[in-house]
């Protein structure tokens, strides 16, 4: 990695820390983390805001890295785990686990989410293939349809089981309301390890963007790489969706923003996207908590409200710079 890229990364990491620190202050009540404060303030700081900020960072990182990996493997700048139905697969698995009464076990919910995420990913992938090729339109269409179908299925399942509507909202729109620190740290550890694992494939991802045959003739074991990465991304998505529900647009727009800033080389792109994603989710969550207080807006609504127009803007303004073709 070049020195300039390293300096940029350090700077954005500092920015992330600054925003995370500010997010501790920022809320319906402004609290100075260093003033000591009373019992209530400390409770809000350490039991509510800190877990939430950590979770926002892990979610932003995990979703962005997954988006980067998907866009490279599928050679499609519009691919991301949300649009392609991997997230809704995970959400369906999570909802199923709850309905079947498996939710009490610490690991069974994410495990079922993982199985369903991987299944829906494989389903979309198989559906999108026409004569050994995967046209951009077919992939997106297959993803959107599977996504819509699974989201409908989740709503149906939850409704039929006389669950509250907020549970549907949790799965479809996401929430960073989880405060169980043990669970959050577990999520953080697995997400970080998985993102590192994806990062180790940077060179292969660069080459795979030239097409699978070209990549094979450059010595990449394409099938193995693809399978491993699909599994790793499914782990990330399953875990994040189990804890936070489905949060869209992060995996789609953040890789593009990062690409605009540092170019398409995955060695630099991936860490940049990870940090940008964390910053984006932190800011969106700040708004989600405060904009309509005392009501909380679902985080997925905020990411969509900001993400979609921003993405359209990027597509119009910088089309030639982000992608060479669609």
């Amino acid at each position, binding site marked *: 990695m070049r020195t300039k890229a390293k300096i940029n990364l350090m700077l954005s990491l500092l920015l992330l820390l600054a925003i995370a620190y500010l997010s501790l202050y920022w809320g319906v009540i402004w609290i100075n983390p260093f003033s000591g404060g009373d019992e209530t303030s400390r409770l809000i700081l350490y039991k509510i805001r800190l877990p939430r900020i950590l979770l926002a960072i892990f979610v932003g990182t995990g979703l962005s890295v997954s988006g980067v990996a998907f866009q490279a493997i599928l*050679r*499609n*700048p519009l691919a991301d785990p949300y649009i392609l139905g991997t997230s809704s697969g995970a959400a369906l698995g999570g909802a199923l686990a709850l309905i079947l009464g498996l939710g009490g076990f610490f690991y069974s919910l994410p495990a079922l989410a993982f199985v369903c995420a991987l299944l829906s990913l494989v389903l979309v992938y198989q559906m999108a293939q026409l004569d050994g090729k995967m046209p951009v339109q077919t992939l997106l269409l297959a993803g959107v349809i599977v996504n819509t179908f699974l989201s409908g299925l989740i709503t149906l399942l939850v409704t039929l089981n006389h669950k509250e509507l907020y549970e549907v909202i949790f799965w479809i729109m996401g929430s960073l309301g989880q405060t169980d620190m043990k669970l959050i740290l577990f999520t953080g550890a697995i997400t970080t390890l998985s993102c590192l694992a994806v990062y*180790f494939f*940077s*060179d292969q991802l*660069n*080459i795979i*963007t*030239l*097409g699978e*045959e*070209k990549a*094979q*003739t*450059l*010595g*990449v*074991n*394409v099938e193995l790489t693809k399978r491993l990465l699909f599994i790793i991304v499914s782990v990330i998505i399953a875990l994040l969706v189990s804890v936070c529900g489905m949060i869209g647009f992060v995996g789609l727009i953040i890789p593009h923003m990062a*690409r605009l800033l540092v*170019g*398409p*080389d995955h060695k630099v792109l991936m860490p940049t996207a990870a940090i940008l994603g964390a910053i984006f989710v932190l800011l969106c969550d700040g708004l989600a908590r405060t904009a309509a207080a005392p009501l909380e807006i679902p985080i997925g609504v905020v990411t969509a409200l900001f993400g979609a127009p921003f993405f359209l803007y990027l597509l119009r303004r910088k089309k*030639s*710079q*982000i*992608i*060479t*073709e669609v």
Partner: protein
Amino acid sequence: MSLIEVADIYFAYENNPVLAGISFNVEPGNILGIIGPNGSGKSTLLRILAGLLKTREGQVKINQRPISSCSPRELARMIAVVPEETLVTFPFTVEQLVMMGRAPHRSFMSSLTLADREAVDLAMVETGVKGLKDHFINELSSGERQRVFIAQALAQQPRIMLLDEPTAHLDINYQTEIFDLLLHQQAKNGLTIIVVSHDLNLASLYCEKLLLLRAGRIFAHGAPAEVITPKILQDVYRNRVQVSVNQATNKPQISLIPKGAV
């Protein structure tokens, strides 16, 4: 000792036989042109030689070793492949793309060695893209793009280079430029080159041997003067042609005769 030995290969997509009974050898440092009408199996044969397709019967050996027993990485150290067109989804720079040619020589997550940098530099100089190294690939003309991918292939430091219609979309000045560049590599490094082309005149000018396919079988194999004859071309292409000799190179060149002409 032949570098490439192709022994009686048979290949079919589903139940459609594409190639049958194909056998030939290529000597080190040779340039072989694979020619033939559309659908005769040229590109399929090239993809088999590249290890991208597995044959049902027969085998391809390189340096006595069956390619079916080689990993993609081992193959990529011996064989570089330049497709007709390489789609680049994201705007990499020329240098980044040529650097990818070093992948088969680098170990997992290693940083670039001096040898890597030198190979990339040399490949860019020899293909004349050094001056473009910081340009984005999507800003280049198709002739320049093709030279970038040849540079990427050279950075692999292969013994064999396979090219599929490398000049199909190019103007004639770019066509000769690409072939002159390949010829230079053959002379300088003893690179063995197999090129699929539908341009009979170009193939005749630059290749030492030609392999003419018809309907998945070898129809003729030999020096251009043996393959590019009115009789053979009329049999394969069902076209009346006139064959003359290029004064500068002594190679046969064809001109078409329209049906109406006497």
